[in-house]
């Protein structure tokens, strides 16, 4: 079960192993991804998706510095997340220069095309991928 929010009202949504496995979060071109969504529920679900592809995910904690410290130690090569969380990483990357070397950033969003220019500046080595999902 997953908690989703309509506005700020939580409700439970049933997700099966098959649902998670069949989700489309893009082609996997990386080995050590950080999964960073504003909703921890989303981070865990995408983490489970990566497990179905036999990839070991690091998922973000509430505190961005702890996330960045762990990401630097793990040697992440990709970040999979929503634009708001990636912008938080962008602010922190000056304190954790190793993170600027990530090779792939996969932005998962639900509305329109987010502004990705700032991400390109913070992560100059990264190829940006945008995945638009339908509202669940």
């Amino acid at each position, binding site marked *: 079960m997953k908690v989703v929010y309509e506005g700020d009202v*939580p409700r439970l949504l049933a997700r099966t192993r098959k649902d998670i496995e069949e989700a489309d979060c893009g082609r996997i071109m990386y080995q050590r991804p950080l999964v960073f969504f504003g909703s921890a529920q989303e981070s865990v679900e995408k983490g489970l998706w990566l497990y179905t592809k*036999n*990839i070991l995910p690091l998922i973000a904690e509430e505190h961005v510095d*702890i996330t960045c410290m*762990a990401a630097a130690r793990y040697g992440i090569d990709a970040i999979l997340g929503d634009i708001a969380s990636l912008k938080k990483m962008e602010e922190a990357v000056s304190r954790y220069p190793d993170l600027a070397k990530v090779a792939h950033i996969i932005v998962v969003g639900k509305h329109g095309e987010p502004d990705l220019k700032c991400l390109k500046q913070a992560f100059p080595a990264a190829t940006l991928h945008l995945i638009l999902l339908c509202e669940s």
Partner: protein
Amino acid sequence: MRIVNGISYRTKEDLEDSCVGLEQYQPGQPSVKDLFIRVTSGTSGTQPTVLAVSFAEVKKNIFAKGRRLFAEPLLVVLPRNLSSLQWVQLFFDPAAESSRILFLSRRELEHPLLAKIIDEFQPRHVFSTVSLFDFLLDTLATRNGLSGLAAVERLFITGETLSHTVKQKFEALVPEAAIEMSYGISEVGGGVGAYCATLYKRHPDSFGRAYHPLLPLSIVEPDENGVGEIALTTRELGPYLTGDAGRLVAEPCACGATETLFVEGRINYDIVHCVGATFHAALVEKIFASLREYVEDYYLEIREVQGEGKTLGFVACTVVPTAKLRAMKNGVEYVCEFLEKNLQITKTQSLGDLVRVDIFMKPFITYAEILPKSVKYIRMRKVD
């Protein structure tokens, strides 16, 4: 590294600032499903360690017994998102048979409609830590929302010692639930010591202290009572000193286990957990080192107390004041404020931060001429 009887043991300090166990990660291979990332360390006083931990052995142990570890619906309430992922992934495994799982993140725990979420889910089993489950109960109780936990049959608790006060509270608020505890350390995913109901029938005073080992364990440098430091061996860590004191007894149990581990707490109380916060002796020492002009010696007693509708942390601090502190009109307030401001007890919050949000009571400072001999080498202690 510490060498004891010719064996080189790693310690927590050896792991700081590193990534351990990653060599076993083979991207794209099915073995990945048994690997988890864990991030250790409690406060900003220590550097985090990232470990890639294999769960294959633990899973074999758990499922070989031919029993389901958890029944569904299972509610997982853990402080780290990574730990939640680990347990959800583990119990999402077809072999675990338990697949109706809900985990709660901080957003849900702090949400005004928390009771609605739990009421809708109606868990039968809950897996949590002492402090977080305590927080959950306090929150639900103040919102008249405990009915969502009415169907809970089993409460599986880990993370820290369950004090008598908190155990009584759990029993009163979730009366139908059998409470089970396991012994674990953050460097090892999946636990070090397992709960056994038969064991507690044999040792009724040892609830939360007696376990069957899940890993190869030994006791290093035991005293005349057999109590020494608990050492374990894992694939990732090799021989490792846990920093916990314990006693290992060979005794057959009806469940098939052949040994019992009695956990006696931290060696030298270097770490004390209380209502979700962590006191590191090294950090406390650093704070008092910068108060040297005012404080000659100190001793901290940390405890959980039952406040109005919730459990609070409380620090009683006995100090031997210098002449300078004695001469100060507001010396007690000065030490109290200094402690509140500078003592970091979570990764991001000081004691004062937690006093302001009513998780801790204001520290209580008293002066003493001299500290009792019994606290000569121990500067802080958790008391029940």
